[in-house]
């Protein structure tokens, strides 16, 4: 277990160092996510009032689209200099490499989500600070479910010529349950009177999806990466 965590940490640290130097994924992802929210706000907000319940949906749509962009790019980076082969050749647990890539992705998504939540709260007058702990739990568990499947598919597709097309085609249908649970749970919190019981129900469902997706991904990563 110690070796597993050590390798995962090495990969996270390396990915974050590369990202801090290039700011490539963060800048494109943030720019894209903010654009999505702004476009929706211009389309939906009339006379300073947003329709009920749209804030949660827009938050998750922006997160999913921006996340897909980041997922593709993080593995593209490993493909460009074939560093993925060097990682796979190392005598490290291959699932630990997956875990490292996943944690790095979650960290980047978390940064984007902080901005998104504030922006959605501001533009759509959503009560984002009414149950902060529950909102954070929903976002973290939803991101984990989305990124766990996405990281696996992005790694699988790294050598596919049409990977940019295939990634969303494979990813979105499988992560629809995560998106639905995330949107409904967040919508329950964004009501005028936050429904924490309902939010907890959707959170439990998200945690169940996380457990299934992460287990399956850790289990299948090594065989899928061995050609």
């Amino acid at each position, binding site marked *: 277990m110690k070796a597993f965590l050590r390798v995962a940490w090495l990969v996270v640290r390396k990915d974050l160092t590369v990202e801090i130097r*290039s700011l490539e994924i963060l800048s494109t992802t943030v720019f894209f996510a903010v654009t999505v929210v702004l476009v929706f706000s211009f389309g939906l907000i009339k006379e300073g009032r947003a329709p009920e319940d749209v804030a949660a949906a827009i938050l998750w749509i922006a997160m999913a689209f921006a996340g897909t962009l980041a997922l593709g790019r993080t593995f593209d980076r490993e493909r460009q*200099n*074939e560093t993925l082969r060097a990682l796979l050749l190392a005598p490290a647990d291959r699932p630990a490499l997956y875990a490292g890539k996943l944690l790095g992705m979650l960290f980047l998504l978390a940064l984007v989500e902080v901005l998104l939540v504030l922006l959605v709260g501001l533009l759509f007058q959503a009560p984002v600070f009414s149950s902060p702990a529950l909102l954070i739990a929903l976002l973290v568990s939803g991101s984990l479910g989305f990124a766990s499947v996405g990281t696996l598919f992005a790694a699988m597709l790294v050598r596919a010529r049409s990977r940019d097309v295939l990634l969303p085609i494979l990813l979105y249908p499988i992560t629809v349950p995560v998106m639905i649970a995330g949107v409904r749970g967040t919508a329950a919190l964004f009501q005028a009177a936050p429904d924490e019981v309902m939010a907890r129900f959707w959170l439990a469902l998200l945690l169940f999806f996380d457990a299934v997706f992460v287990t399956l991904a850790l289990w299948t990563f090594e065989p899928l990466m061995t050609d």
Partner: protein
Amino acid sequence: MDFTRLAAIDVGRHFGRRKALSQITFECRAGEILGLLGPNGAGKSTLLSILATLLTPSTGRVEYGTFSADSAGAALRSRLGLLGHDLYLYPELTARENLMFFAQLYALSEPARAVAEGLEHAALSGRADDQVGGFSRGMRQRLALERALLHKPRLLLLDEPFTGLDQASVAALSARLKGLRDQGSLIVLATHDLDVAEDVISRSLFLRDGRLARDPGPARDLRTRYLQAMGQS
């Protein structure tokens, strides 16, 4: 784990309906540099990937002493070093950070020392804290070789290692490979550069269209043998 013999037995590999390799059989022992010679598309890189355990053969098997890729897994990978045509380096990281990342990934007992030695061998100690993206091809090639050698692998697999090197660097690399050979490493080297290869390799395999071509014999120089094996003279 350790081994002193590498054997490919009837190895074949196809991608869909396309046969990249078929019926490749050879043996190589510690203290040898085996040259893998052939034109583009002959299957050299595919064979190196199979030997590096990154690809599984569709037919046949590879033996590393008494071990196989399936039976030894991570322990076997710790004894393999691969320098591919792409250099497996992160351009955003410095030379030191690249080597340190891999030294730690290989769980070396003294990573800082291994990194310092690697930088010295690559003649990059003075540029250790510069990002690799700003290096010339030759500098990156030298660094990549040290990355592949950090963990002192028994089997070293090299794909076109002389690409982008100036004459002095080619001579230094040739000397380094001979030194490793004398220390008991087992080296498989795929190259187009027959003039350099002739000076370095102990034995050669000629690959053509994914198959081993017949070696016309040791009496002639390597270029003549290569041309004859490829059916061009």
